[in-house]
């Protein structure tokens, strides 16, 4: 099946393209990009006035399958991802069972093959059952095809064990993704520690509980000469630690999430549990620091931390409600609204943080439209404004922090492996 995308503004930083082009797709691959391609093609998409970019790579997602299919399934998650222009996701390992063995990876791969509508890459756990006591078989999991290792949801408290993990990862050139949280400092908290936790009468989660762990984990990775990626960076201090580590040549990369760029701690004072996540929304100053960090490259990637929860787990007292928000369907629009429309970054940079760089960090063959690459493509209307409504959410869970918010930028079409998989207004 071939397809021609006509006259869109093609933005692909990996090959330095930012121009009106035609893209020819055949048998799942990009076969040509040129100013004007004339061919007798079955399917033509008129992208005039629209922007054509590589499909988004979301390197932080909780698909909940296996184990919590009441929250989300691989099928519902990837369908939601397509609506948000996300063509590849990295599935976190905190499922039930945990993805901590080659066997668990194999079972997950079968489910993905059966029901995934976008590309799903798998993260393996660092420790068995994410308990922080014993390392998984890194080589076994890598051979089975995991793209990274993470205990996300938990930090590895045991310093020696994590050092050992970095050593093994270094020897097989694997990536470890760190959820940085010292629960000795954060336990019992539900919002940022400071004036907001004080006003709300809730226990706080200090920034210290995050950045001290960021500092420790980067140090351990450096000592081992290993790569490290910091998940969901939420505060200025973490940014500064990462910035300095990069300056001295550490192999560190980092992501932040859309909610930290558009919202802040003050937005949670209405006790809306859909704005409760971990790490929590921080101060306006932290939000500014994150934007600057994206601008100067300290933060490499935008990742959704898509974390579906049922209403039963959210419509309860704030301190008892589950942490986490969904994010697939709003990530690109929040990126456009908070970063591009406000002039913080240009469209090239937007594509880099949403697609080019996360693909590179994970070492996967995605994030570009170079000839021969997989035809994962998003056709985007960056000017289209819309309001996030619960009834429009495709994800099985509706716990979006952006309900009722007006966002800019809408996905017109999503193409996965050369097939048109989503068009605005409906999944195909």
């Amino acid at each position, binding site marked *: 099946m071939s397809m021609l995308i006509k006259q869109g503004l093609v933005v692909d930083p990996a090959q330095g393209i930012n121009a009106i082009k035609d893209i020819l797709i055949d048998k799942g691959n990009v076969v040509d990009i040129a100013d004007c391609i004339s061919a007798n093609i079955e399917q033509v998409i008129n992208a005039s006035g629209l922007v054509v970019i590589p499909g988004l790579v979301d390197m932080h997602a909780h698909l909940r399958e296996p184990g919590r299919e009441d929250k989300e399934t691989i099928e519902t998650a990837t369908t939601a991802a397509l609506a948000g222009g996300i063509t590849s996701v990295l599935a976190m390992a905190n499922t039930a069972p945990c993805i901590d063995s080659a066997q668990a990876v194999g079972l997950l791969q079968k489910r993905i093959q059966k029901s995934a509508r976008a590309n799903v890459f798998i993260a393996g756990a660092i420790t068995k059952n994410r308990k922080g006591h014993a390392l998984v078989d890194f080589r076994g999991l890598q051979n089975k095809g995991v793209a990274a290792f993470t205990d996300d949801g938990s930090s590895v408290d045991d310093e020696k064990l994590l050092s050992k993990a970095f050593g093994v990862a270094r020897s097989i050139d694997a990536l470890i993704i760190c959820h940085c949280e010292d629960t000795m400092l954060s336990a019992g908290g539900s919002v940022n520690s400071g*004036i907001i936790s004080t*006003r709300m009468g809730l226990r706080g989660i200090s920034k210290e509980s995050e950045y001290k762990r960021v500092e420790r984990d980067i140090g351990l990775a450096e000592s081992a000469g290993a790569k490290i990626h910091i998940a969901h960076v939420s505060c200025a201090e973490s940014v500064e630690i990462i910035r300095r580590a990069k300056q001295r040549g550490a192999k560190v990369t980092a992501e932040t999430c859309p909610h930290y760029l558009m919202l802040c701690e003050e937005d949670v004072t209405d006790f809306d549990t859909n704005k409760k996540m971990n790490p929590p929304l921080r101060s306006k100053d932290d939000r500014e620091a994150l934007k600057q960090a994206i601008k100067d490259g300290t933060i490499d990637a935008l990742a959704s931390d898509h974390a579906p929860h049922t209403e039963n787990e959210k419509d309860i007292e704030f301190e008892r409600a589950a942490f986490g928000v969904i994010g697939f369907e709003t990530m690109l629009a929040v990126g456009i609204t908070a970063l591009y429309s406000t002039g913080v970054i240009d469209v090239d940079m937007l594509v880099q943080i949403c697609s080019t760089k996360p693909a590179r960090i994970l070492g996967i063959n995605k994030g570009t439209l170079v000839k021969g690459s997989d035809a994962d493509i998003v056709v985007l209307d960056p000017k289209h404004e819309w309001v996030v409504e619960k009834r429009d959410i495709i994800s099985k869970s509706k716990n979006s922090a952006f309900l009722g918010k007006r966002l800019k930028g809408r996905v017109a079409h999503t193409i996965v492996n050369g097939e048109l998989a989503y068009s605005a207004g409906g999944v195909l």
Partner: protein
Amino acid sequence: MGGWKQKDLLGLEYLTKEQIEHLLVTAESFKEVSTRGIKKVPALRGKTVVNLFYEPSTRTRVSFEIAAKRLSADVINIETETSSIRKGETLIDTGLNIQALKADIIVVRHNASGAAVMLARHVDISVINAGDGWHEHPTQALLDIFTLKQKLGRIEGLKISIVGDIAHSRVARSNIWGLTKLGAEVTVCAPKILIPPEIEKMGVRVTDKIDNAIHNADAINVLRMQFERDETTAFPKQLEYFKNFAVTEERLKRAKKDIIVMHPGPINRGIEVSSAVADGEQSVILEQVTNGIAVRMAVLFLVAQGRRNR
């Protein structure tokens, strides 16, 4: 100002200065009812008030019950144990059931901060917050402010100190919101471990020296020290607390002569306040209890009006 439009009273954070003043004036007009031979007015006749208490409370619940009865409302009390993990009917479901029983006002006491806010978002009937976690206890603060105003004639420009476990006190938070909105200068005083982070951003002064809190203060509001919920080993021991923070006659000698001593009760005699002070001339503790009726009558009356006016 026009008619009252709030169907709920969730906290003093959510009220304007004018609304707080309106509440106080309304309470003033209800105070007289409790001095009559027949202590009843028909203002809420035919209305049903449900006291939904998830935490043990005698004085607040009884005060609300008396207030509602003096307004001729029918009162139902539901007292229920809750725990963070125990499965059972959710707060929202309970609220919807009470609404389905055609009650008009829910007075809710809950151990989770924000519980009243959440409940009010899910029901159409009125919700009055009778204390939620560490968050707010608006009727307590209103009766404290009402008592102060009766004693001193004004709130603006007064120097008020709140002493005790500020970190875990909903009474402190509601008082801070109410007093600062009305133009008082508020100081909070506690051991450092019991001062919540960045509280100075609420517009208060902070000290860990009781003598600083007493010096120059027009009134001092002494909070109950809840040693029974001692969660941290760093919590000061009772004797040590008495030595360093208790309001005693000795300390009051260095205070303004007519300083007013308040306490939301129940008192720990000999811990946060000496018996001599609690029973002394400067104490208005029992007047607070009496004023609580008038204030809660005003709140019940106004939220019922607020629901009609919406």
